[in-house]
């Protein structure tokens, strides 16, 4: 396993940049996670949970009509079909089961648009854990339906009124709250960021995506894909699918970051492409920051990619060249979303559309018959408000019938 070194670093990235008060909890978490993964009872329970409750493994799908248009074979890992509609269920089920194992009775989580909050609240309901979700006050207003989902699931939602009142501030608040409750509370982080062991731990629970896809791909085609593509916000779905292929040197790995209004406008969330090395939320990684190191607000039509940091393992893969990272702007992503809907009858998440759009762009430079595996990380139900706004599909009739 391509794990970090003993102090939680991949090269210069990762580590633990947190108050000393959290170190003991991080050590405990690391030990518990390592022991859990080595315990067949734990892994068997998690596997069963994923199968019976999470609807795993997700299918590998050959997108025939899309492939015809793209000129290469496009294969989709259908994480949109998982319970709660995204790869995120893998992470929350893993961490919630670990929470139980550690004897803690409560989880806290940060959320941006609410997807990770809903997933966390789901896992908490399933395991009978208390759950508090921190969410920027701005976001609680914009994403009222997800707030309702979390409450319906029994979670407490705490609007965060500090800083920019968005995801990064929710994460600050969750870290603060964790310091005060760490004896009985697990911080169920939402992506492959944060202090060690979180980046590795979240990746370990998400790597089923790639492990399954690799086996499914071999079974269906007798070969490995030429390219594996995924969108990158914090980076959990991308690490989830990349990990299985890291040692397959012939398989090219591509992460697609949110290009927002366009990379040139400066209004984007292309952290690896445009950020500098720095420390944010407990890890050294690429960060969108100003000259002084103050975090800069990111921009993307996709709430799930709208984050100014990125998981440190991605920073390392970028620095070593094992994976390539490119921006995909709002317009390109939305065009891919529409194309997938029209050709395959699949409405994916706007996040996932970034990965698909990048893959379709890449396809133009690939030999005919090349095989591209795209992680379709989630479904688009949550995004329909944005879609309506973007495409101007009014509720008003396009044609009145009598």
């Amino acid at each position: 396993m391509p794990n970090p070194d003993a102090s939680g670093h991949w090269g210069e990235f990762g580590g633990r940049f947190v108050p000393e008060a959290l170190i003991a909890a991080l050590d405990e978490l690391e030990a518990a996670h390592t022991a859990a993964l080595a315990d067949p009872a734990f892994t068997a329970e998690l596997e069963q949970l994923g199968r019976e409750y999470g609807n795993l493994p997700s299918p590998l799908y050959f997108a025939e009509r899309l492939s015809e248009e793209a000129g290469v074979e496009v294969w989709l890992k259908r994480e949109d079909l998982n319970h709660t509609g995204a790869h995120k269920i893998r992470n929350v089920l893993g961490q919630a089961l670990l929470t139980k194992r550690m004897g803690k009775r409560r989880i806290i989580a940060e959320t941006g648009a609410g997807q990770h909050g809903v997933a966390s609240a789901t896992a908490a309901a399933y395991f009978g854990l208390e759950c508090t979700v921190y969410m920027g006050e701005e976001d609680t207003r914009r994403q009222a339906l997800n707030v309702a989902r979390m409450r319906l699931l029994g979670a407490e939602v705490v609007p965060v009124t500090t800083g920019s009142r968005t995801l990064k501030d929710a994460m600050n608040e969750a870290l603060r709250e964790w310091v005060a409750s760490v004896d009985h509370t697990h911080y169920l982080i939402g992506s492959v960021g944060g202090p060690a062991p979180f980046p590795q731990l979240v990746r370990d629970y998400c790597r089923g995506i790639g492990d399954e896809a690799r086996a499914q791909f071999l079974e269906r085609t007798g070969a490995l894909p030429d390219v594996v593509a995924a969108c990158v916000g914090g980076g959990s779905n991308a690490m989830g699918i990349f990990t299985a292929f890291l040692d397959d040197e012939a398989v090219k790995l591509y992460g697609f970051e949110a290009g927002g209004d366009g990379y040139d406008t400066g209004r984007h969330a292309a952290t690896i492409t445009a950020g500098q090395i720095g420390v944010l939320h407990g890890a050294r990684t690429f960060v969108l920051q100003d000259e002084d190191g103050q975090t800069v607000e990111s921009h993307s039509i996709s709430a799930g990619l709208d984050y100014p940091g990125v998981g440190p393992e991605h920073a390392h893969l970028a620095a070593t060249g094992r994976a390539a990272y490119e921006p995909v702007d709002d317009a390109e992503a939305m065009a891919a979303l529409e194309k997938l809907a029209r050709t395959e009858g699949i409405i994916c998440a706007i996040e996932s559309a970034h990965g698909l759009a990048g893959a379709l762009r890449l396809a133009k430079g690939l030999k005919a018959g090349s095989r591209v595996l795209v992680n379709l990380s989630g479904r688009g139900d949550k995004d329909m408000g944005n879609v309506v706004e973007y495409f101007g599909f009014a509720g008003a009739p396009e044609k009145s019938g009598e």
Partner: protein
Amino acid sequence: MHAADAFAKTRAEGRAALVGYLPAGYPTLADSIKAVDIMIDHGADIIELGLPYSDPVMDGPAIQRAADQALAGGFRTRQVFEVTEAVAGRVPILVMTYWNLVERYGVDRFARDFAAAGGAGLITPDLIPDEAGEWIKASDAYGLDRVFLVAPSSTEERIAATVAACRGFVYAQSVMGVTGARAATSAVAPALVERTRKHTDLPIGVGLGVRSGDQAAEIGAYGDAVIVGSAIVNCYLDAPDIPTGHQRLAELTADLAAGVRR
């Protein structure tokens, strides 16, 4: 001037030192200089200048708001050297900063410029010695104090390793939680100080939650320094105007200074 100079004096006087915290640039750049003078005038033994940061994970609402306000006012990292230079000389000036700001400025460059401005050293709330290789080198090179934190949750091993990396004093985070004035000081603080003392002769400062002379006296009974932050910031946050804030700060500092002298 280093922290040790202040502690030499307070130890000689048989009392704890009073450490006053304020974000540089708050309530304005000039007024933060003025505020530091007021604190020194009224009995602060050490000054801790906060470096305003967009993502202050260890701070509670008062300090967050003050830092936001300083940044909204255009505060730049390099201005902390101006403030330091303006106030240095009377008591040791330490900077409390989240690590990204230093890393971004350049660790060696920061240490050099800060030392040149007359600064004593850094308090680093999100930097543990394990990650501090570059900072240890730079602080050695420029003779700066290095204040790391210990916490109630720290193991004996971690306390030992942390104090071994400290210079100047050790910062004991006395409650599990963020900065902010609380009604009662922590019950676990004396225990943490006691555990820490077994590993070091360095002075031990106790932070988090102090807001009155009485509390300062209580902490001064077992700690070597009483660190006050949110209560100081609140002098300005709650005040109708800055002059009122200055006046409240003078009164608060005097009360706290009397506390550590009881």
